């Protein structure tokens, strides 16, 4: 099914003090998380935004056809630009996963609006809007009927139900949201393997910045059984041997017991 992907990043963020898509989370702009997620799927999106600063990502950036009409306006822009079905994502939900994308692509119904219903909650900005709804969307924008849920009620919509961890649809809108996002990423950044997965049920996030030794001590306190397992630490996929090595919150940490492959 022919499809173009658009990331809506035109929202005014009075609460964040900065354009939501460019807001750094652990040093990486929010929208970059989506771009990185889409890349292995072979999807190159178009960004709909108004701030400068989006040209750094090397993808096409366009502005809203009719500005100031919120997400509905963004979808109208996407449909006008594409001339075919569009897949819509939003920069303020940066942790949407490949699994969600695959489900959306696999379970879409032709000719209908397809949206994800995640843990029971409808996510209009994670969906496929077919070319045939362009007229309906245009009318909504022109008459300023901008509620997404109203559109889904009016036009044939197929809901794709998925369950999973809340962080996947984390909305990064306020400074409190940002803190929660950072915490989630810090946990995701600590990977455990082999025998350690029996012992460490949830990664214990240290206070950053820290050192390799301090991190090991912190883990040891949280999981005393670790004393029985020898393991090495890799930072950003390289094993580090010096216990004084600094770890900052953007580092990918992996705890590696003795290998047994081959």
């Amino acid at each position: 099914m022919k499809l173009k992907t658009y990331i809506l990043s035109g929202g005014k963020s009075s609460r964040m003090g900065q354009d939501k898509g460019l807001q750094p989370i652990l040093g990486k702009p929010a929208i970059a998380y989506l771009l990185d997620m889409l890349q292995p799927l072979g999807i190159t999106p178009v960004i709909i935004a108004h701030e400068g600063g989006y040209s750094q990502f090397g993808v096409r950036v366009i502005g809203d056809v009719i500005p100031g009409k919120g997400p509905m306006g963004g979808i109208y822009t996407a449909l006008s630009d594409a001339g075919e079905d569009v897949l819509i994502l939003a920069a303020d939900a940066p942790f949407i996963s490949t699994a969600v994308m695959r489900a959306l692509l696999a379970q879409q119904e032709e000719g209908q609006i397809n949206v994800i219903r995640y843990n029971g909650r409808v996510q209009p900005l994670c969906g496929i809007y077919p070319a045939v709804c362009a007229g309906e969307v245009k009318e909504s924008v022109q008459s300023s009927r901008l509620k997404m849920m109203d559109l889904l009620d009016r036009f044939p919509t197929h809901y794709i139900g998925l369950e999973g961890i809340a962080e996947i649809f984390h909305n990064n809108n306020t400074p409190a949201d940002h803190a929660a996002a950072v915490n989630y990423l810090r946990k995701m950044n600590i990977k455990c393997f082999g025998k350690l997965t029996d012992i460490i049920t949830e990664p214990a996030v240290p206070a950053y910045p820290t050192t390799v030794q301090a991190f090991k001590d912190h883990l040891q306190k949280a999981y005393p059984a670790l004393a029985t397992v020898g393991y090495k630490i890799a930072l950003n996929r390289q094993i580090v041997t010096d216990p004084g090595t600094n770890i900052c919150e953007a580092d990918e940490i992996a705890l590696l017991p003795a290998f047994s492959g081959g």
Partner: protein
Amino acid sequence: MGEKKIRNSFIEGPIPPEKIADSIAAHRHKTGIGGHAIFLGQVRNDLIDGKEVQAIDFTTYREMAEQKIAEIREDIFAKHELVCMHIYHSLGIVPAGALCFFVFTSSKHRKPAQKACEELVERFKAEVPVWGKELFTDASYQWKELKG
């Protein structure tokens, strides 16, 4: 070696014996090759504390593993005169008696292929982050420890 290909060295489940034959057949047009060396790792039904290994469940730290494999490949190509080199490892469950590791080197004369193959196997086992969970016939398990 030229441009960096995004390699996928991992195969879900056992390595089918046909893959070995297909790999050999695929080299028939490379008429500069005089010798191939092949190593095959097979899951063995080890007896541990009276319990028999029925299968091994392999997991990996994918991104680091592919990086490491690429490094090892480059080193081996630089050190030995090889025409070709292929490395595959299984992921997921591989039953006893099935293949989980396939290393294949080719060279003009036999010695580089043989030496490179042996070196590749040893380096893979030592440096690539892959773990095996030994599954016993009574549904219990143990994390595999290499003896050398």
